[in-house]
Every structure is written in structure tokens, then in C-alpha cells.
């Protein structure tokens, strides 16, 4: 286990961050309408990156790590619908983004994910979803997949410390790929989430944590050899990560998923900052984050792309596009039973969720809005009817 340079900086930096809500500077977020994952996609993403100041400035000569969302088993679909049309980041978005990064001079592009319960190659995982991995690997020079659900063949982890000591976790041990990059990009799907209300660029990073340490089968003292199961400890706190990794704070730690998951997501994105947040919803699902979150799930086509250099601001714009209020408090949609991840990340100084401090460029919110909120109400009614029998 290495205490990395980044971890040292995080520990040193933590002393400089006051222990109160910090209003980060306003951010620019680009929004584009995109009818499909075909020919319209590349010009739309390219224009959005230009609106953010250009990719070249961000990635030229750099190693880029792109965390994508491949949540759940690749053999589990919502109905007959392909995974990328509902809950996986679409391979076209991954491929086109990698292509544009390569064209902008990225030295190396690594596609990262911690797929369900395996340390096997991501290529094998996506083949099961009926993807062709070569379409991503050949999108630009030096593209590779990295499974970050473990410490890699050398079983080494990089430690990332959370500013302010974290809401729950003072730090995390992650696959070294999260340290061996100059630019970290979250490429997420826009979805509702049954535990955290919404899942966007920040919640996508829940999956950067390796299940060898944070999973159901994690070793008690040290990471297990390979990952098994999900991250139940993040939801219920019934067990701790492997003892070799930072443990939960010992006091004032909630035990319900609706309080814990948003806090842990905020801790993660504060510990491992996101340089570029991309959220796609050309096609996606409403009502939950995967087919296991039914009933009342819907396949929808909002036909929208969102990108920003600040994940809190980007997620705030996404929420507005979903017809939710990013300033919403616990008890109101979409945070009926959970805390607002954006607010918790804001407390860490990661960014602002205040619409008044965020500049939206490209399509307007009104032009690109898709009413997830209305579908959420329909789902609630459906569940209510079923409960009443």
C-alpha cells in the first residue's frame, strides 16, 4: 500500500479548507440536443467541448482516465432493450469522446470501470453486453480498458484523502489508474436513482471504489484477491472496509442508505476530483438506475448531452433538465428519502449547484428539458396503487 503524493497533498490541503459550506466559483456547462447516437453525436460533443474552452487545453500530452457507467450485470436488461439504451453509458459516447480526446492530443486514454463482481478484462464484460470493444479501443491511439474493481495484477492501491476529513470516509484506496492520470473524466448516464435520488457525473464515481476493499467479499484485514458482490457497506454501514484502508469516521455516521450514499459520493468526488463531467441521455431510463429498480421503469429518449468542467455545476444543470430543483432539500423530489448529493459535495468545496452561479451554454434548459419529475410521480402512483392492492 502506498501513501501517494496525491494523498499527501490532500492531507496538507485539508487544513486549508474551512469546515463550512464553501461556495465555489460559478461554472460553465454546455448542453446539446442530439437526436441519436449516429452522425449527430460527434459534432454535438465536439461543439460542447469547444464551448467549454476546448479539449486540447485540457488533454494535450496528458493521460486521460474516463470513468464510464456499466452498472449491474451485462446480462441483465430492462425488458428486451439493449443496456446502452437504458443504464450503461452508450459505447458511441465513449468511443466518440475517446476519439475527440485523441484528436486533441491526449497521450493515452484509459477507460475505467469496476464491473460487477469480477476482476476480468472489461473487454470480456462488454462483449457480454453485445458490444464490440474494438470500436472503442480503436477510436484513438493508445486507448485501453482498465478494470478498477481490484488493485490490478500487482495488488497495489493508491490512497486518496477526503478534504475536511470527509462526511463519512476520511479517504479511499483506489486502483492506481485513478492516480496515474492527469485528467479524470466522468462519463455518466442521466438517470433517477432509488437510493440517491439521481445518478449523474458524481454518483457515477461511486463505482471507482474497488470491491476487494469495499465489496461484500472484501477481506477483513487486507483487500481480497478478487472482487465479489456489491458495496453494501456503503449503503448500510454494517461492516467496514478492509482494515488496511481508511475506516469510517467513528462518530455521527448515519446508518441509512439515503444519508450514507450521498455523503460517500460527495467524499469520493472530493478525494478524487473530476476534471470533466459528461452526462449523456440521448436514450436512458426513468424511475431508477437499472432494471433491478422496478416497477415503474421507463425507457426514454431525452436526446440530450451535458458537459462541464465542474461536476456539481454539471449535475445541477442535469437536474434542471430532468425538471428537478438542484437546491431541493431532503423530503422533496428527487430526494424524498435521501440527502442531496450536490449539497454535500458543495460543502466539500467541490463546486456550486446554485443555478444563479452557473452559466449554461448551447441549448437552453427549456429547449432540452425532459420531464423525469413527471415520470417519477407516475411511478409513485403506480407503487401506491400496488401497495393498496
Amino acid at each position, binding site marked *: 500500500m502506498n501513501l501517494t503524493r496525491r494523498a499527501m497533498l490532500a492531507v496538507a490541503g485539508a487544513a486549508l479548507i474551512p469546515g463550512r459550506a464553501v461556495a465555489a466559483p460559478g461554472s460553465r456547462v454546455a448542453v446539446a440536443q442530439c437526436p441519436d447516437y449516429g452522425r449527430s453525436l460527434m459534432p454535438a460533443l465536439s461543439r460542447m467541448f469547444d464551448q467549454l474552452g476546448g479539449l486540447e487545453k485540457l488533454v494535450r500530452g496528458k493521460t486521460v482516465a474516463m470513468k464510464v457507467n456499466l452498472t449491474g450485470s451485462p*446480462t*441483465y*436488461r430492462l*425488458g*428486451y432493450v439493449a443496456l446502452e439504451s437504458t443504464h450503461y453509458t452508450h459505447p458511441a459516447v465513449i468511443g466518440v469522446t475517446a476519439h475527440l480526446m485523441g484528436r486533441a492530443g491526449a497521450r493515452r486514454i484509459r477507460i475505467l470501470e469496476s464491473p460487477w463482481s469480477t*476482476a*476480468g*478484462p472489461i*473487454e*470480456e464484460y462488454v*462483449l*457480454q453486453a*453485445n458490444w*464490440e470493444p474494438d470500436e472503442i479501443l480503436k477510436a484513438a491511439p493508445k486507448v485501453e480498458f482498465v478494470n478498477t474493481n481490484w488493485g490490478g*495484477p500487482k495488488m497495489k492501491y493508491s490512497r486518496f484523502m477526503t478534504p475536511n476529513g470527509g462526511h463519512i470516509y476520511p479517504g479511499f484506496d483506489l486502483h492506481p489508474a485513478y492516480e496515474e492520470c492527469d485528467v479524470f473524466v466522468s462519463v455518466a448516464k442521466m438517470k433517477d436513482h432509488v437510493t440517491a435520488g439521481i445518478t449523474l457525473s458524481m454518483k457515477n464515481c461511486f463505482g471507482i471504489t474497488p470491491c476487494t476493499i469495499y465489496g461484500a467479499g472484501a477481506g477483513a484485514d487486507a483487500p481480497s*484477491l*478478487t472482487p465479489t*458482490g456489491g458495496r453494501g457497506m456503503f449503503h448500510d454501514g454494517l461492516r467496514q472496509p478492509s482494515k488496511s484502508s481508511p475506516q469510517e469516521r467513528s462518530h455521527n455516521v448515519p446508518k441509512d442508505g439515503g444519508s450514507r450514499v450521498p455523503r460517500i459520493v460527495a467524499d469520493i468526488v472530493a478525494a478524487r476530483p473530476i476534471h470533466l463531467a459528461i452526462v449523456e441521455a440521448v436514450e436512458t431510463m426513468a424511475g431508477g438506475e437499472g*432494471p433491478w429498480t422496478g416497477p415503474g421503469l421507463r425507457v426514454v429518449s431525452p436526446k440530450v448531452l451535458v458537459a462541464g468542467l465542474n461536476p456539481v455545476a454539471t449535475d445541477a444543470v442535469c437536474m434542471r433538465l430532468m425538471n428537478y430543483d438542484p437546491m431541493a432539500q431532503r423530503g422533496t423530489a428527487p430526494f424524498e428519502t435521501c440527502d442531496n448529493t450536490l449539497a454535500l459535495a458543495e460543502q466539500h468545496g467541490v463546486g456550486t449547484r446554485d443555478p444563479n452561479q452557473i452559466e449554461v451554454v448551447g441549448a437552453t434548459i427549456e429547449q432540452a428539458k425532459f420531464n423525469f419529475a413527471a415520470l417519477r410521480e407516475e411511478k409513485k402512483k403506480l407503487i401506491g396503487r400496488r401497495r393498496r392492492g
Partner: protein
Amino acid sequence: MEWPISWPAAWRASKSPVEMAGFSRYESGRLPPGVIVVKGDWAGVARQTGGGSAGPTGAPWVDSNGWRIRLARMQNPGRTVWVECEAAKDNDVIRPEQYLLGVADAAAHSGRWVVTLDSAFQKGLDGRAALATTAWERLRGAVKFFGQREDRETLPARAALAVVSDFAGDNEFLSHEILNLAARQQLPYLLVDKSKFTRLPDGLKAVVYADAQAPSTVLRAALAAFVKGGGLLITGAAWGKAEGTALPDSPTVRYTVYTVGQGRIAIPTDSKMDDPYLVAADAQMLLGHRHDVMRLWNGGILGAYPTGDAKRTVVHLINYSGRVGGDPVSLWIAGAFQNATLFSFEFAEPKKLALTRQRGGVEIHLPPLAVYGAVEVR
């Protein structure tokens, strides 16, 4: 083993009620010619007080006789394999679907399941109880369906992987369980009996040789040629030291992979090959999914047995839960096929199914199946 004392009136009146119902009669020690009997289990999610039991992954434990039947057929060419299970105990609660599963699981693998009615079922038939007679009609329908002896049930297995063993003696437990657990993971395989070895089947991409003894000279030469030609050999200490260069990365940490000629040899890092679950799981990891002959989405605990070839494939699907699942199932089959038909005793007629071309194969959306369906593509 006894047939029920009483049968529904129509059969009771007949001189040969068993045959009329589409069954063959089996009395212990008096087998029809050309038939062998193997001991098996009730197919389905393993029965246990308080609900189903779980396997090492936490998934429900599924019993299937498919691997036993295939092994017995290979070892006894030309003979019909019947599977005999322990009779249900008096206090066992047996759902009608469990009989259907027994019949379908065996027939899909070209065997036959010996039906032994539980006492409640027998009493129900005696008393002409509606539930029992309905269940009996369903069972009879399934038997009739498979009794048509379509060649769908006798096509050879379609797979990219072969398991080579003598399946006997010191190798019996490991080799049998590899077959059982590979099928459970929906990893299709062919069987090769090393005691009668002449050549490897065509079209293979990988071979598992997990026996404790070194392969014979002929087998070793065939496996070495297979590897040099681009194949993958997954083997243990019995193979000896692998020639070739160790790759820096392996798809699974439990194996070191050596490149030899155009192919690869994978040997466990600790030389041990004694856990059949891991052997099967690692075989899938090492082989990869590039050569899948079929894929299932929302398959749950469906068993899948692909047979045939790239011109005509039949995938037997057995729903070991015996209940229609909540999530619709999609099936992908490798190959350029034009049409798809579903055969099942759950439908009065075969169903033509729509197919779409998807990445080197065809994708088919299946209607709900409670027990069994065979999807044939041509």
C-alpha cells in the same frame, strides 16, 4: 419402482395404459433393449426445507441431469439413456412443474426421465381430483411432445470448448463436476473421452484437460498441435512445464498463460486444479466471450444447451425455476440465420419468432417460458 395403482379411467380400461399415455414402462431390472439407466436428481432449483439452496456465487443451486445424460451417451453410443431419481418422500410437496422439468431437462439432452409419481399425485389421480388430472394432462402433453422424437433433441452440442478426460477413477469427481458447473454457468462444451481418443473435434477454440495423469502420447501430440495452431489449452500440473513465454497479464489471476506457437497454454499459478467451480469459471474467463455461440439476457436460472452448427442451431432452454420470470428474455445466437422458430409443449403450435441481426449473430426476443422451449434457427 411401481406405477400408480390407479390410472384415469380411459387408461385403466386399456390393456396397455402406460403406452397409451405415451410412456414406456420401467420396472427395476427389466429394461427395454438398448436402454441404460443412470442415477440422477430432480431437475430444478434444489429442493430444501425452507426454500431453495444456494451455490458458491449465492445464486440458487440448480440440479440438472443434462451433463449426466450427455456423458452416458458418449460412453454408451447408440443406447438410450434413462434417468432415475429418488422417489419423492410422502411429506415432499412436489409442484406439477417439477415433473415437467424432469421430463424436459432429460429430453433436451436426448435422454428420458423415469417418472415416479409422488403419493399425493397418485391419490389425486385415484380420486380424479381436478388439480391432479390437470397436472397429469400437462405431463402427458410434455411426454407426447418429446415422444415425437424430432431430431431437434439429437443434434450434437455446439460449443467452442471441449472437456477432455476419461471421466472415471481418480478423475471422476473433478471431471463430472466441471461438466455440471460449466453448464450451470451457461458455458457450452463438447465431451471428449481420452480413453477412446482419436482426434479433437473441429472448430474448437479451447480445451480443458484437468486429469491427474499426463496425457497419452497421442493425446499430447494432438493438444500440442491444437495449441500451435491457435487453440487454448487449460491444464494442470499433469501437463508438465509449459513451453513458451509467460504473458505479463492473464485474464484471471489464478492462471499463468504461456504463448506457444499461435496459441496459449494456461496453467494454474499454484499448479492446483482441484476446484471444479473455479476450473469452469476460469475456463470461461480464459476462453473469453469472443467465441460465444449464444448469449442470454435476463436468463436468470435458465439452462441453455446449444446444439447443431452454423447452418442450423437449436438452443434448448430450460427454466429451472418452473415459473415464468419477471424479465423478458433475449437470446443471441452466433451465425447468419434467416428465421427462428420456438418449439414448446407450452404452446399448441410452434411459434415463428422475429429475429434481428446483431454483431455476428441474430437476436431473438422470447415469449415467457415457464419450463421449456427450443429455439431453432436456420
